[in-house]
């Protein structure tokens, strides 16, 4: 039996399972793009209007961060500017979710075991998943070309646009295929792949926002940072601009590398296992595990370490940009304004404002981490071991407290390390902000993250079945109101709802203890209320 035997049948099975999902995703993307392209033709019939609009957009780093860089002033170029980033993200997410669905999810649910017992080779599952997803990207590419052409835009640029989306989707299919081999649960594999998409978007966003404006005031040249991002490659091919087809070989190379890696991993592991083979565990527990806190730490240890490493890497990256921000953009008022808005400082020295804004981003990451850790409470409770743990002499408040300690402690560590890494990198490129200042600036975000954590505990106590949705929704709202409230022009009363609004923008302004103490009090009150509610309610599966 060849390792690929049965691939054809598995492809048909995957297509059958996806007969609604993939078509909806593809048709939906094409419809959105067709509408977007039609809107451009409708709103901006003349070139002068388009140039004015793009010149305005080009001065706003926030717009560049979200949409990428303008490549020209004709209709297609504007349609590209308004839609390409979003389409690339859609293609990437379609691909990652589909790959995980047909690989790791099958294994996790035991379906792959039944399939594997039939006459099916060990590579067939991954091959079938990739075949389906690469095929879906081809169809998506064609559909997007069709959408642009049918809206009345030139076919040449449309082909580049469609191809850019298709190969980007394929590259992320490869990333997800590797993730599906590395992680044992579909949840973790999806999180890995979606995080990769998010980070790729953010990295190219930073690279684009810091880009250099051409003399015509329209075109913007991204900095090298955008070239690091696989999502950036699709944009750097510049559909409807001075097209660079060769850039599209980069995602293809990434795809090839990832597929090679994924198959190498398939050959090295057992069905259901992750990359690291299942080593026998200790036959007895070490002392450190034997407490609610020890257990909570053990459950969160691996992901906490991952977050800490990520924070250091991100902090080093941000710190090394300080120099670039000052040199290249000192004269750009749009950048200073954006940074001032993000940091909530009005106007301040550009570098300080930049770092203050980035500390807000670290605060947001720390809050994400806290939410992720605390949602473990719910998964332990619903169909998990919490029932057996709470039937021992562990009180409910102590159990929640252990997880809360991990959440807040981990968030603090993330902020300290991110601040320190930023400071060290800044010092390395000749900055003078100071490591301790940036560590303090990072820690100043902790009360906001704690408040988010308190909110999650409150919802867990009061509405346990809704906690996953409400926790993430609460985080998104507080980030939107707190970090982007000024950019969006939200009224102050709305922005005040978010804990992030009240964090002093160190190092752009001096630390003021009042708001931080206030946030800590609010956080403690929320958590205490949540614990009280939890102690009064039934355990609810």
């Amino acid at each position, binding site marked *: 039996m060849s390792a690929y035997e049965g691939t054809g049948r598995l492809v048909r099975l995957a297509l059958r399972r996806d007969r609604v999902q993939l078509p909806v995703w593809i048709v939906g993307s094409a419809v959105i793009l067709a509408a977007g392209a039609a809107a451009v033709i409708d709103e901006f019939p003349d070139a002068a209007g388009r140039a004015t609009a793009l010149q305005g957009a080009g001065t706003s780093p926030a717009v560049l961060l979200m949409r990428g860089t303008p490549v020209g002033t004709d209709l297609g170029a504007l349609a590209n500017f308004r839609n390409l980033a979003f389409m690339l993200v859609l293609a990437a997410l379609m691909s990652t979710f589909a790959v995980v669905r047909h690989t790791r999810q099958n294994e996790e649910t035991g379906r792959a075991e039944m399939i594997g017992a039939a006459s099916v080779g060990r590579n067939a599952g991954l091959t079938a998943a990739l075949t389906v997803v690469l095929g879906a990207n081809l169809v998506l590419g064609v559909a997007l070309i069709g959408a642009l052409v049918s809206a009345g835009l030139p076919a040449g640029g449309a082909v580049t646009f469609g191809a850019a989306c298709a190969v980007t989707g394929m590259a992320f299919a490869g990333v997800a295929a590797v993730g599906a081999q590395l992680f*044992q649960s579909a949840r973790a594999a999806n999180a890995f792949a979606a995080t990769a998409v998010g980070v790729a978007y953010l990295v190219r966003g930073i690279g684009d926002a810091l880009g250099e404006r051409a003399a015509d005031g329209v075109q913007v040249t991204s900095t090298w940072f955008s070239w690091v991002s696989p999502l950036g490659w699709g944009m750097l091919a510049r559909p409807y601009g001075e097209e660079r087809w060769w850039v599209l070989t980069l995602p293809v190379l990434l795809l090839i590398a990832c597929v090679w890696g994924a198959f190498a991993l398939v050959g090295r592991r057992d069905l259901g296992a992750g990359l690291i083979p*299942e080593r*026998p*565990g*200790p*036959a*007895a*527990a070490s002392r450190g*595990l*034997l*407490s*609610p806190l020890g*257990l909570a730490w*053990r*459950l969160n240890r*691996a992901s906490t370490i991952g977050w800490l490493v990520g924070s250091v890497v991100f902090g080093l990256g941000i710190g090394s940009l300080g120099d670039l921000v000052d040199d290249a953009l000192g004269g750009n008022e749009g950048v200073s304004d954006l940074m001032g808005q993000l940091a909530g400082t009005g106007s301040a020295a550009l570098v300080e404002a930049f770092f203050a804004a980035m500390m807000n981003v670290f605060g947001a990451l720390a809050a994400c981490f806290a939410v992720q850790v605390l949602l473990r409470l719910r998964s332990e409770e619903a*169909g*998990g*071991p919490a*029932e*057996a*743990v*709470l*039937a*021992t*002499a*562990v*009180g409910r408040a102590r159990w929640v407290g252990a997880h809360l300690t991990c959440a807040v402690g981990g968030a603090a560590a993330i902020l300290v390390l991110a601040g320190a890494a930023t400071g060290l990198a800044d010092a390395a490129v000749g900055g003078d902000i100071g490591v301790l200042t940036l560590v303090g600036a990072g820690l100043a975000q902790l009360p906001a993250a704690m408040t988010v954590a308190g909110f999650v505990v409150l919802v867990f106590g009061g509405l346990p079945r809704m906690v996953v949705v409400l926790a993430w929704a609460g985080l998104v709202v507080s980030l939107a109101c707190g970090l982007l409230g000024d950019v969006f022009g939200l009224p102050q009363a709305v922005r005040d709802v978010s804990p992030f609004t009240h964090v002093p923008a160190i190092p752009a302004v001096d630390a003021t203890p009042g708001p931080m103490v206030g946030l800590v009090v609010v956080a403690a009150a929320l958590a205490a209320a949540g614990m009280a509610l939890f102690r*009064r*309610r*039934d*355990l609810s*599966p």
Partner: protein
Amino acid sequence: MTDAISVEGLVKTFGRTRALNGLDLVVRTGEVHGFLGPNGAGKTTTLRVLLGLLRADSGRAQVLGGDPWRDATPLHRRLAYVPGEVNLWPNLSGGEAIDLFGDLRGGLDKARREELLDRFRLDPAKRCRTYSKGNRQKVALIAAFASDVELFVLDEPTSGLDPLMEAAFQQTVREVSARGATVLLSSHIFSEVEALCSKVSIIRDGVTVESGTLAQLRHLTRTSVVVEAAEPITGLGGLPGVHDLVADGARARFDVDAAHLPGVLRHLASFEVNTLTSRPPTLEELFMRHYGDAPEAAAEVPSAGASR
């Protein structure tokens, strides 16, 4: 002797479902008490109330002299619980999970732990994710039985175990019972309850329908009799208390209400009886009497886990 568990008129509703509807239960200290009922009868809900995991809407419950909701933490030091569905942490080893549960309960007898690992043939170094349902149950059982506690609350603890392990389980229950511990064993495995329990409570639809020693319950039930005589046996059908008579000349098979057994025996004495076998009803038959003959009860059985 006090009661280890006493429950009166327990009511628990989940939305519109009434899981417990005035349930009564008394478990005396030192007894092994069988808690029987079909799926969805409210067994698991009762146990969770007794552990303070659920709060009863009304009624009175006392465990080891305390309020299971208010005094949950101190009470839990004195009892061990094996849930019906044992969920563990995939990346911990079985040995770690055993130690953890034991320690969180307040301590674990190391020698006893080793003995039980051996008896249940569990490899403690394997990760919990690789365990089958039966092995996960063994983890919970070993963690419970290696604790020196006064009360064991076991929710269908052997549903994933093979017959050999079932025997190991019964031996272990007898050991803890011999040292004076109380055991509340929820089950729908009749042979297990028959083998282990001195007292039985049968519940249905959240109400206790029968409670007593196996002997007392049998007293309420019919005895199955098979009799063979040298001459044709007549007149049985006219006797009070005789049911399901199959008479075949010199051979007869029937069930008889316990209260009418003496009359039937007097009647049989007038024939030249060669062989007579009688046997007490199995728990299965007791069960069938309470649930089997009611059509709506039969329809409820598939709604497994409605009480969870």
